């Protein structure tokens, strides 16, 4: 098959005509004519071969195709003729399209890809089983659901939660699921390696210590060990045997790329998390339910059946099953829980930003094309004079734009691949393991193509419109200022460049502020010792302790930890400093100050144990620490910080012995707390916060289920990590124990700022490069417009220095207007970021001076290239053109 398709037909036509001529010659020669006579007579008789071919070709119906082919060929030649321009345009577009393709492929992975299952449309999840959050039910309810429904070929229950995988230092907290035996059959997905477990595991508790591992976990945690199946692994300190590895992409019923890593039989849950007997309790709702509909059963039928059962359950057990009657059957991929719904909104926002970036890129390419169109006016005029229709010209220009757009789209695809594989290499730190298995599937490719074509039309419209409005006569006379009416277009382009400079400056200033803040953060005095400190958040609720048992646990833990070698001191506190956490902010009635009758001020507090200030290295300015006597039944005591002491009393010393009352809820004031100490100010929620009034109450007088163990070590803290974990787990092996150094905590608290700095910086640099290309384009255009004038100036004695100043001055003017507008905008916007900034004011003079200065410098360089070209103008040639 020849390409293009009409090529073969043209050859055939030629052959047909030649055979016609040969036959005519032969006939004539048979009639007695000489060879030459016959030849010329036959040709004369035949007529104009070219014309006949042309007319015949018209009969094929390829005309439109042929025109497009010609346009494509011509466009490609034109683009190749100016490789610099073409490269620039393709680069700009590839960034814009690539960013959007990358965003879309993330959206595609997180939101659009249904869970891996055979016939996912037959899968259903049960929601709103119980009142409140989550779609959970109890085990007895689940049994009744299974028995009372016929619509499902499998109705499976599962419980998701963190489990500790491995032992010692290699222990990791991963998302695991305890599932009923029909869980895997419900999905219809079998193991990629080994096997899954089935309903045999449902019959006996504790008899099947087996585990199925996700593909991601197999690769990340076990180094893709091909012999993993059959090996033992430790889960929450219990030995399980790996029996299978799931195929890539299997993530149970989880949306958004969240991927459990371990599946164990539900009947093994007591071994995994030996708390209370959840299986017998109808009132504890902890199981999620999914099912596979029997073939031919509609969702509505299943819904009717489920409603019948749940209504009965709600009637029979009104106390345990409040709200059960509202149960809903949903497709498996619907997002139900509110935190999950936030993510689509967030992705929508990111998509909008991506769209804006693409618009900027399109505007820029349009700008480039416009300045090039000026240079091509003569060529276009000649084509028009030779009879090319306006429509054909517009089509030609649009074809070129589309070619550019497609090239940019292809390059953008490559960029997106790079970006997403980077994301794969450096996954964002999320509390549960997520599988960012971002691949470019057909949906992403279609998206890329559509976006490319749309942007091609978008940025191609301006030059096409321009091409259709040419006035022939001045063009052909080589009047470079001809075809007037450009002033409006020019100022539009100026405006475009100014706004590009402004927007990129805003991004860059914000990025600069974050970078500065990160550097400043290291110099901030947090008010507490950050070295040689370990923290261990503990959640006694998850192991089902009551207050008596909890108090006992805390006491034993502290006693044991304080005796450990290498430990200087240990204490408990409700929250770890600088992690954005808190312990509430009750209203505070200060004795002698509430006379005003206004609402009480509310202050934040922490609940801390004995030796807290010693352990944290926070100096006490007056009074004493909490001790073991500040316990239940003893007089209530409080320690305030310096700022609070100064706000209500004259200072630390005079604050001693003063009294406050707290109002937690319902306008009920607590008994009096007496100030027994004043602590130095420190940072509480974040390093960036302003100094604020703050107070502490005794942990022994205010029991909390979640406390964090704080340990000050003698030497390197990370050496105590595993010993500390073992000690805590020896007290209760079901407790999830994660030991972190204070330094790690601080680094984690900088993460948002760090991510913001990188993202804003990248967007800013992209905007800046667009703006530079824009400035370059505008100045190049101006230079080409002013060739005559420049020539005249040079003829009159202007030096190239003067010309440089003239041209660069023009670019500088645009840049400075943009910088002014951008700086003003940034000043207004950066105030919104001030809460994230640490140690840097939102109007940081260093940032606000250096970034615009840098930007202006680069902009001058962008002007310098066309300016230098202007100095190369030969006055004689330029003047002659005038």
């Amino acid at each position: 098959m020849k390409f293009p398709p009409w090529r073969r037909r043209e050859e055939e036509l030629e052959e047909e005509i030649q055979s016609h001529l040969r036959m005519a010659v032969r006939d004539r020669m048979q009639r007695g004519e000489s060879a030459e006579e016959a030849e010329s007579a036959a040709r004369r008789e035949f007529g104009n071969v070219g014309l006949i071919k042309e007319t015949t070709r018209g009969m094929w119906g390829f005309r439109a195709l042929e025109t497009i082919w010609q346009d494509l060929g011509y466009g490609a030649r034109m683009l190749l003729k100016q490789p610099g321009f073409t490269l620039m345009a393709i680069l700009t577009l590839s960034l814009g399209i690539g960013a959007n393709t990358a965003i879309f492929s993330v959206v595609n992975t997180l939101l659009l890809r249904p869970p891996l299952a055979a016939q996912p449309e037959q899968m259903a999840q049960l929601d709103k089983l119980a009142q409140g959050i989550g779609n959970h039910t109890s085990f007895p309810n689940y049994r009744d659901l299974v028995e009372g429904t016929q619509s499902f070929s499998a109705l499976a229950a599962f419980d998701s939660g963190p489990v500790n995988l491995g032992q010692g230092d290699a222990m990791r907290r991963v998302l695991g699921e305890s599932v009923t035996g029909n869980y895997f059959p419900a999905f219809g997905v079998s193991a990629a390696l080994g096997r899954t477990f089935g309903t045999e595991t449902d019959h006996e508790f504790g008899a099947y210590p087996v585990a199925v591992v996700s593909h991601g976990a197999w690769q990340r945690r076990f180094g893709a060990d091909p012999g993993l199946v059959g090996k033992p692994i430790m889960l929450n300190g219990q030995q399980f045997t790996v029996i299978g590895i799931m195929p890539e992409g299997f993530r149970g019923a989880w949306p958004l790329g969240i991927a459990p890593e371990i599946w164990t039989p539900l009947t093994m849950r007591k071994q995994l998390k030996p708390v209370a007997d959840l299986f017998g309790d109808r009132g504890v709702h902890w199981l999620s339910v999914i099912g596979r509909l029997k073939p031919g059963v509609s969702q509505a039928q299943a819904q009717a059946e489920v409603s019948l059962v749940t209504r009965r359950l709600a009637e029979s057990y009104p106390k345990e099953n409040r709200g059960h009657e509202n149960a809903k059957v949903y497709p498996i991929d619907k997002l139900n829980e509110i935190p999950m719904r936030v993510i689509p909104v967030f992705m929508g926002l990111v998509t909008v930003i991506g769209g804006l970036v693409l618009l900027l890129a399109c505007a820029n390419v349009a700008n480039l094309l416009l300045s090039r169109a000026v240079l091509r006016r003569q060529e276009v005029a000649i084509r028009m004079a030779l009879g090319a229709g306006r429509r054909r010209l517009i089509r030609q220009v649009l074809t070129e734009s589309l070619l550019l757009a497609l090239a940019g789209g292809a390059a953008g695809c490559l960029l997106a691949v790079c970006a997403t594989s980077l994301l794969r290499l450096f996954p964002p730190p999320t509390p549960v393991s997520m599988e960012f298995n971002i691949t470019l599937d057909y949906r992403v490719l279609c998206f890329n193509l559509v976006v490319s074509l749309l942007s091609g039309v978008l940025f191609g419209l301006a030059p096409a419109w321009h091409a259709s409005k040419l006035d022939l006569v001045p063009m052909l006379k080589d009047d470079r200022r001809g075809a007037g009416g450009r002033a409006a277009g020019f100022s539009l382009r100026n405006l475009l460049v100014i706004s590009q400079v402004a927007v990129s400056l805003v991004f860059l200033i914000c990025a600069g502020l974050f970078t500065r803040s990160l550097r400043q953060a290291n110099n901030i005095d947090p008010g507490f010792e950050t070295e040689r400190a370990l923290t261990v958040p503990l959640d006694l609720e998850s192991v089902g302790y009551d207050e008596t048992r909890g108090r006992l646990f805390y006491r034993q833990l502290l006693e044991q930890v304080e005796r450990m070698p290498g430990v200087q001191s240990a204490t408990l506190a409700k929250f770890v400093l600088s992690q954005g956490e808190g312990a509430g902010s009750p209203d505070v009635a200060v004795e002698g100050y509430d006379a005003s009758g206004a609402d009480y001020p509310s202050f934040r507090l922490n609940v801390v144990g004995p030796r807290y200030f010693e352990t944290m290295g926070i100096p006490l300015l007056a009074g004493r620490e909490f001790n073991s006597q500040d316990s239940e039944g003893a007089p209530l005591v409080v320690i305030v910080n310096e700022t609070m002491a100064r706000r209500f009393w004259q200072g630390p010393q005079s604050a001693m012995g003063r009294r406050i009352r707290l109002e937690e809820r319902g306008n009920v004031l607590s008994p009096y707390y007496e100030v027994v100490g004043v602590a130095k100010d420190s940072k509480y929620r974040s390093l960036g916060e302003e100094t604020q009034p703050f107070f502490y109450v005794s942990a022994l007088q205010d029991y909390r289920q979640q406390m964090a163990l704080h340990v000050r070590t003698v030497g390197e803290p990370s050496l105590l990590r595993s010993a500390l974990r073992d000690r805590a787990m020896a007290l209760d092996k079901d407790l999830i124990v994660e030991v972190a150094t204070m330094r790690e905590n601080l680094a984690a608290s900088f993460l948002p700022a760090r991510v913001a700095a990188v993202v804003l910086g990248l967007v800013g640099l992209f905007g800046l490069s667009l703006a530079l290309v824009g400035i370059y384009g505008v100045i190049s255009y101006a230079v080409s417009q002013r060739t005559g004038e420049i020539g005249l100036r040079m003829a009159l004695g202007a030096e190239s220095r003067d010309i440089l100043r003239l041209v660069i001055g023009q670019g500088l003017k645009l840049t400075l207007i943009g910088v002014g507008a951008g700086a003003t905008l940034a000043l207004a916007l950066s105030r919104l970021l001030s809460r994230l900034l640490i140690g840097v004011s939102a109007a940081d003079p260093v940032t606000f001076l250096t970034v615009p200065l840098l930007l202006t410098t680069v902009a001058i360089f962008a002007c310098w290239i066309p300016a230098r070209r202007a100095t190369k103008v030969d006055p004689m040639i330029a003047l002659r053109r005038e």
Partner: protein
Amino acid sequence: MKARYQNRIELLQGTLDMLILQTLQWGPQHGYGISQAIRTNSNETLQVDTGSLYPALHRLERQKLISSDWKVSENNQRVKVYRLTAAGKKHLAAERSRWERLTEAVEGVLNPARKESEA
């Protein structure tokens, strides 16, 4: 320029198409053969302009009234041979009856009184 050619084709189109189809009724034939046949059968009166013939052939082929094949002629030359399709036959019949009615009508207008022509 293009427009003028199209006019000329249109002028001849109906008649030429019919003559081509009629010629092919006697058997497959190549372009040169068709022009010669029309010329001979019209006693050299009708000179078929190749500038009309080939566009007409290619158009008829596209309309599927005729089809084409490459054959090797008796002189060992590759020639493109056209043949009438079923649709072409039907079309020819319709065209012929239309033509006969037309000539009858024109005859009637030109010679209202006499039935015999002067020739």
